[in-house]
């Protein structure tokens, strides 16, 4: 009950945000929502299924280009249908790519997806006739920053609902089974290929939606601005900060990451990437299971459990080599 009230309050606050802040501040909130969307997508393949996808930015870029090209095409497709089409195109491409690539494991899978992303970037740079090469494409101008905020918010809320549903579905249990032990999952009769490809395709659809929104908001789509590894890293970091394989981890992580990034950016201008590098290292070493895990432990404390710095040390001890 308390939980439902909390949710309602948070949602109401989020709906009211545009009337309270300036259009610029709203833009940064929309960026955070888009990051949340990407992170929610990554969470399905990287969190639940346990496949370290390092190339999801490919789908951000494909989503951006598909949305843009459809809007600019002679049919002048409106934004929302174009966005859904982009999600569909990305999911289909992810299926085609996923079938061979998801046979790989560990490092090999990670780098293969990285290679896929790089290949797409190079194709976007070199395929002049379709993408206008390195020059990029320009979308129609829309100056209504509330519009982008609400579209992104609706998709993130939708993402939370979908993730929560999936978590308790056959698909979700299958993913976790694959993460824990793929061979055992196969013996339980799970068609691992279908399950993994489904996770990959869904994650691509989420990334494509984020890419489409950013494209329309930024107006300009060029290969180096969209197919950049930073997006991949940000979505993974957001998941790690929040907690991988959880419903609330990605959106919480994205919000925290955006806050930290903005704070660091305004206080340590020159050293901004350095400070972020240190933050990543600290999170990976001390809180590898993310904030959601920390919240759970704190909730346990409230119910009379014990809590101290040994929580962090336990995390360290679990993975170090003596």
């Amino acid at each position, binding site marked *: 009950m308390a939980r439902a009230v909390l949710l309602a309050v948070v949602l109401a606050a989020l709906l009211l945000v545009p009337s309270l802040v300036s259009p610029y501040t709203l833009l940064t909130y929309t960026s955070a929502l888009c990051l949340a969307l990407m992170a929610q997508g990554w969470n399905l393949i*990287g969190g639940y299924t*346990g496949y*370290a996808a*390092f190339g999801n930015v490919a789908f951000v870029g494909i989503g951006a280009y598909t949305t843009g090209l459809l809007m600019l095409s002679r049919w002048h497709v409106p934004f929302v249908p174009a966005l859904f089409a982009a999600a569909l195109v990305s999911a289909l491409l992810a299926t085609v790519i996923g079938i*061979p*690539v998801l*046979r*790989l*494991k*560990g*490092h*090999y899978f*990670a*780098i*293969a997806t*990285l*290679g*896929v992303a*790089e*290949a797409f970037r*190079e*194709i976007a*740079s*070199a395929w002049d006739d379709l993408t206008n090469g390195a020059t990029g494409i320009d979308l129609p101008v829309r100056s209504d920053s509330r519009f982008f905020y609400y579209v992104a918010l609706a998709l993130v809320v939708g993402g939370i609902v979908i993730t929560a549903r999936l978590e308790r579905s056959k698909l979700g249990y299958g993913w976790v089974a694959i993460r824990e032990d793929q061979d055992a999952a196969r013996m339980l009769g799970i068609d691992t290929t279908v399950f993994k490809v489904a996770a990959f395709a869904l994650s691509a659809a989420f990334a494509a939606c984020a890419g489409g929104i950013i494209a329309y908001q930024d107006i300009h789509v060029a290969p180096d601005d969209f197919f950049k590894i930073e997006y991949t*890293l940000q979505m*993974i*970091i957001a998941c*790690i900060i929040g907690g*991988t394989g959880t419903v609330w981890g990605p959106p919480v992580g994205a919000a925290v990451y955006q806050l930290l990034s903005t704070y660091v950016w305004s206080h340590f201008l*020159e*050293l*901004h*990437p*350095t400070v*972020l*590098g*240190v*933050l*990543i*290292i600290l999170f*990976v*070493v001390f809180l*590898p299971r993310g904030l959601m895990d920390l919240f759970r432990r704190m909730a346990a404390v409230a119910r009379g459990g014990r809590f101290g710095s040994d929580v962090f040390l336990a995390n*360290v001890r*679990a*993975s*170090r*080599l*003596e």
Partner: protein
Amino acid sequence: MSGAEVGQIAMNALLLSGVLAVVALGFALVWGITNIVNLAHGAFIVIGAYVTFGLHDFWSMDPFLSIPISMAALFALGFLIQRALINQIIRAPLLATFLLTFGLESLIVNLLRFFFRADTRSVMTAYSGAALALGPVRVPYIRLGALGVSILLVLLLAAFLTRSRLGRAIRATGMDVDAARLTGVKVATVYAITFGIGAALAGAAGSLLSMIVPFDPNLGGGYTERAFIICVLGGLGNVVNVLAGAAAYSVVEVVVGSRLPAFSQAITFGMLVLLLAVRPQGIAGKAFS
């Protein structure tokens, strides 16, 4: 294509493969023995380049003579980083090691940019630009020297791994950690030493690259990617595998680069993905032996 051009392309590939072999060997060693894909490998290369540049700039030290210093400095740094950081998460899931080494890369590159600015640097010597002429084919002395250093380092590493006690302990750890531990090997120390050797090789590669290309703190990233592709091509099996991978990769890069330069990266990455799709387990086995 004229005969002279074919000859020059073949020579370019040979010279490139020497440097790339050193780049990839350190990366392969760390990956094969400790199962860490070190995304900060490129950052170590950049540090090596700055060491050579600094020694040349301040004390006019010949860049080839600075290679051992660069290697020693990077060995110490690699050893410390493994001990202080990577060792903390070595048993965590793959993603953690990936992110940690990536965070390190970002940290090192930005610190370098902070201290050295984004200015482009080159190491210029009296013999820079001079070349041996083999008929119409040109062989720059510096690149020839770099090839010589590469061959020397490869031979030294191979001898170290097969002949010395420590080298054998490293290989044993790579093959079976638990068995190695039972025979009294201090695994944590072996891992730190392995990481140090990998970093030292990256330092040597950086010193060589500083003589060959103008560089800034962003030099390294492309070489981490190349090292990975070479390892996938050749496999992690042993020194010879890595050499074969470096040679194959160099031929592809040089030939594609001379015919379809705009698509060279797309083709290289496409090749990587295709290769992985055909051989999901990678080309060769895991352990370094």
